Each structure stands twice: as structure tokens, then as C-alpha cells.
């Protein structure tokens, strides 16, 4: 009997390589788990039949293009879209022998923090199905936590990997911008979008990152990443950990979240790290405003391609212009429409300097503040999300309240920095996520610190209601 709730990808691969378990048996075990638990959770938009590969399975967020397998990005406008080529990350997974289990649910075009913006209905949190799994990558995060996949890929623009991992209680990495190819990914905001791994352990997360990272000639914004070292050390001797005041005391951080993160800070100290408070005076105060100008501006340009001409939905219209306007009205949901309009406004004549131009300058300020801190610290520590998983519907009618979900993840995204979420405890019976941020290309440091803390904290990643 395979217990997919506790099996790590590392262990699964050992079992398959050693001949103790066949790749087909393993795949079937996940299909069984999906059959048993996904009707309640709705983590998957599409489940695959076993096809090729001799390795272990993986789930991919539905913004990741997969040849011959539907890729909807959670949008009606791509309901019938079946890519004719693989994204680079999908191809790299295949080349490693990984087998596609299915495509996971996402807020439409990865725009959201709860997965409620999916045109196909929300995903539910495995810890409490009346609550959201976070977003946009709620499907991948819920699938990993509920044992519906050993690991998964997500994509992160302002927190879409780290925040769902925090709310579902697993490990998620937003890699350094440029270390993972965006070729074949449905684009949202190109200067921010990054694909990254979601897993049950830091070691699995590091291993999956090593499979997908590295320069790609089809995406010339990519760079080569340093070789990944699977973390093994249990101590933090020699590590300098900064605790930015603004990220740890921001208004809206729940007391239970603060307490769990403070306990983890104390643990860093006990493990031998040098822990010191520090400050990001403007990054947190102005980060959200900066993000909600830059990302919608880029989105308004990227989503211009959905015009009913080459692929996707086409609505009727007497002439070309009417057809395009009807197609976009019928095919796009409210959140993409809001962001397209916001971005179009911020880029339009008369407003460009006041909005988009200023936001680009603020981005420099945020980058500089982080650069200065990394002269003194190896890693910065804070909560990932100000709150634990919130009830479905709680923020759905208030876009600004939803945007605040990403208050603590956005600043480092604007600076292109890698960030790792690990679970650090429970508050009101729900997981609390700890965010570790390092300088560009410091993934190995994040893995080391994350692994040592994970071992010391001993968080049980299996939701209480699934424990036997």
C-alpha cells in the first residue's frame, strides 16, 4: 500500500529505481488518491492517463504549456486550447522521465491569491475545505498537500507559489528571476513571472529545481544557475539571518502567524545562526503599489494576444473590431479585465509618468534596499502570508483586500530575488508559512536554511483530517 500523503518524491524515485515499485503502480496510486480526494478539493482541471516515461509523476499548473494536453490558464478564453509544443519546463520534466499526472487549477491567468478567480471554480484547502488554498497556484499547492501528486510546478509573479504553499502547509520556491525558462508559459507579467517547484520537503523542492533550472536558448532572459546542492546540514552555524521589521510587524499580520514565525526565529538562534533585526523602510510600504502598476501594465500588453484570431475563443461580430471586443468580453473574467484596464490606464498618454514611470523608479528603490541588506545578511526571514487560509468568499468582492494577501511576498519579487516558503507551525489549526528571501542566485543558501529549520521544527505536512 502506497501512502501518497507521506511519500516524498525522493523516496518514490528510490523505490522506482530500485525496482521495489513500478512507475505504473506509482502513477495508479496517485490516480486513486485523486479519485478519492479531488472531487472535494478540485485541485485538478485535467487529469492525464499514464503516457510514456519511466519515472515518478508530477502535476503542472495549467499556465504551463503541455503538448497535446489542454492548457487553459484557468480562463474560458483558452477552454479549447491544446498546445502543439511543450514549454521548456515540461520538456525538461519529460527528459528526466517525469510523467504528467495532470494540470492544476489556477486563478485566471495566474491573477489572484485564492484560486477563486478560476473560470472553472475554486480549489479548496486540504486542511479545511471551507477555506481557500491561496493563489494563484492553489491547485498545485493543494495537490501536493493532499497527496494527489508527489510534487508540482507553479508559477509566481507576486507570490503565486509561496503564498499557496504557506496556506496549504508545504514547501514552495520562487526562483531567482531568469533561472527558469518562461518559454511556453502563458505570460502574465514578463519581468516578474517565474516558474518554480512545490513539494513536501525542502530536499524535494531543491531536487525539482535542479531539473528545471538553467539557461534556455528559447528564452534569452535566462541565465545559468549554480549547481544545486541537496541540503543535508542540520545546523545554521555561520548563517546571518536578518529579520526585517516592516515584513514582520506589518499591519494585518495575525497574532498566531506572528507567534509561529517568532518561534522559528528563536529556533534559528538555537541552531547557531546570528539573528538580527533590520529594516526595509520603503519596500513594504510602497511594494504593493509598485506591483499593482508594473504587473497590470505588462499584463495589458501580454493579454492583447487574446483576440480570437489564431487560437482560443472567438465570439461573433459583424466586423473584425466587434469580433475582438465580443471575444474579450465573453472570454475574460473580471480580474483580467480589471488588470488590463488598470495597466492600459497606467500606460496611457497623460498618466504614464505619474503611474508607470514612478513605479519603475520605486522598483529601483526596492532593489537597492534589498541589496544593502544582503551586504550584512545571508537570508531575510518573515511570514509569507499575513494570515492563515481565509474562508472562501471572504475577499472575493473586494479586489484591494485580496491584493493585500501578497503584501509580504511582493517586495522581493519586484527585486527579482528568490524566496522559499516552509511551513513553521499551526495557528487555529491551519498552517503558517515562513518566508526566506536571499540575494539573486542564492537558492542553495535558502535550501540549507530551509532544510535545517524544517528538521528542527518537525512540522507534520499531512493535514490533521487525513491522518490515520
Amino acid at each position: 500500500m502506497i501512502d501518497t500523503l507521506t511519500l516524498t518524491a525522493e523516496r518514490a524515485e528510490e523505490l522506482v529505481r530500485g525496482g521495489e515499485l513500478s512507475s505504473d503502480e506509482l502513477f495508479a496510486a496517485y490516480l486513486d488518491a485523486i479519485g478519492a480526494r479531488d472531487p472535494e478539493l478540485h485541485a485538478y482541471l485535467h487529469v492525464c492517463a499514464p503516457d510514456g516515461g519511466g519515472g515518478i509523476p508530477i502535476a503542472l499548473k495549467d499556465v504551463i504549456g503541455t503538448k497535446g494536453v489542454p492548457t487553459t490558464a484557468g480562463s474560458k478564453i483558452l477552454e479549447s486550447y491544446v498546445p502543439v509544443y511543450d514549454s521548456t519546463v515540461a520538456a525538461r520534466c519529460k527528459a528526466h522521465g517525469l510523467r504528467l499526472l495532470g494540470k492544476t487549477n489556477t486563478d485566471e491567468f495566474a491573477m489572484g491569491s485564492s484560486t477563486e478567480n478560476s473560470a472553472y471554480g475554486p480549489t479548496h484547502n486540504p486542511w479545511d475545505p471551507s477555506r481557500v488554498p491561496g493563489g494563484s497556484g492553489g491547485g498545485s499547492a493543494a495537490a501536493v498537500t493532499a497527496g494527489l501528486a508527489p510534487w508540482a510546478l507553479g508559477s509566481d509573479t507576486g507570490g503565486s507559489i509561496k503564498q499557496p504553499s504557506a496556506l496549504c502547509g508545504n514547501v514552495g520556491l520562487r526562483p531567482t528571476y531568469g533561472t527558469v525558462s518562461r518559454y511556453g508559459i502563458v505570460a502574465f507579467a514578463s519581468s516578474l513571472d517565474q516558474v518554480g517547484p512545490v513539494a513536501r520537503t525542502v530536499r524535494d523542492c531543491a531536487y525539482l529545481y535542479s531539473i528545471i533550472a538553467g539557461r534556455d536558448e528559447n528564452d534569452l532572459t535566462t541565465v545559468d544557475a549554480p549547481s544545486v546542492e541537496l541540503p543535508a546540514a542540520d545546523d545554521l552555524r555561520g548563517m546571518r539571518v536578518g529579520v526585517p521589521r516592516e515584513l514582520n510587524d506589518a499591519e494585518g499580520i495575525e497574532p498566531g502567524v506572528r507567534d509561529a514565525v517568532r518561534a522559528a526565529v528563536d529556533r534559528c538562534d538555537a541552531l547557531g545562526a546570528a539573528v538580527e533585526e533590520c529594516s526595509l523602510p520603503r519596500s513594504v510600504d510602497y511594494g504593493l503599489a509598485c506591483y499593482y502598476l508594473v504587473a497590470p501594465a505588462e499584463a495589458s500588453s501580454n493579454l492583447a494576444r487574446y483576440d480570437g484570431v489564431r487560437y482560443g475563443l472567438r465570439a461573433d461580430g459583424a466586423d473584425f473590431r466587434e469580433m475582438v471586443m465580443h471575444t474579450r468580453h465573453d472570454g475574460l473574467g473580471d480580474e483580467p479585465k480589471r488588470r488590463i484596464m488598470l495597466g492600459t490606464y497606467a500606460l496611457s498618454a497623460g498618466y504614464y509618468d505619474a503611474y508607470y514611470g514612478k513605479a519603475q523608479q520605486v522598483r529601483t528603490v526596492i532593489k537597492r534596499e534589498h541589496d544593502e541588506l544582503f551586504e550584512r545578511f545571508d537570508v531575510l526571514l518573515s511570514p509569507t502570508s499575513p494570515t492563515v487560509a481565509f474562508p472562501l468568499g471572504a475577499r472575493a468582492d473586494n479586489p484591494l483586500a485580496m491584493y493585500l494577501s501578497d503584501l509580504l511576498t511582493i517586495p522581493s519579487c519586484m527585486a527579482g530575488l528568490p524566496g522559499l516558503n516552509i511551513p513553521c507551525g499551526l495557528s487555529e489549526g491551519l498552517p503558517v508559512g515562513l518566508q526566506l528571501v536571499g540575494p539573486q542566485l542564492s537558492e542553495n543558501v535558502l535550501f540549507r536554511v530551509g532544510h535545517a529549520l524544517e528538521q528542527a521544527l518537525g512540522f507534520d505536512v499531512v493535514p490533521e483530517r487525513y491522518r490515520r
Partner: protein
Amino acid sequence: MPGIERDEVLHVARLARLELNDAEVMRFQEQLSAILEAVARVSELDLSDVPPTAHPLDLENAWAEDEPRPCLPAGEVFANAPDRDGDYFRTPPA
């Protein structure tokens, strides 16, 4: 500066090729006004000497080899097309 008029919502929607009904215009006017008010704070900072950042990496001249490669066959290029006329995408008249 914050706040957006009904005419501006319609103007922006036209620029972005989005058809909106009356209920949507009202909803988006209210929501976009609140969002613009929140993001307008980027103008509070003195940024006179700060250069803009468009991209987080210091990348310069990432070259690719200039070699011909096969592209997708026409059958695949048109596989997802809503309408087609031979090797052209067919649309309503402009």
C-alpha cells in the same frame, strides 16, 4: 489624481478592446477608483535621482546563434485556429 470617471473607464476599455455593459462600467469604475487611490502613493516619494528598473537582472546582449531551424508545420500552426482559409487565419472583414 485618484479616481476615474465613467468616460475614462469607457476610453480605457476601448483602448484595450474590451466590450463592457452598463453594470460592468459601474462596477469597474468603483473598483478601479479604489485601486488607483491605493497605487497613487508611488508619487509620494522623492524619486528625482532614481533611475527606472524595467527588469531585475543586469543582462546585456544575450545572443543566440543565427542559424535556421525548422518551424512548426502549417497543420500545427492552424490546429487551434477558430477559422482558416488555406494558409491564412480567416476573420470577419475589417
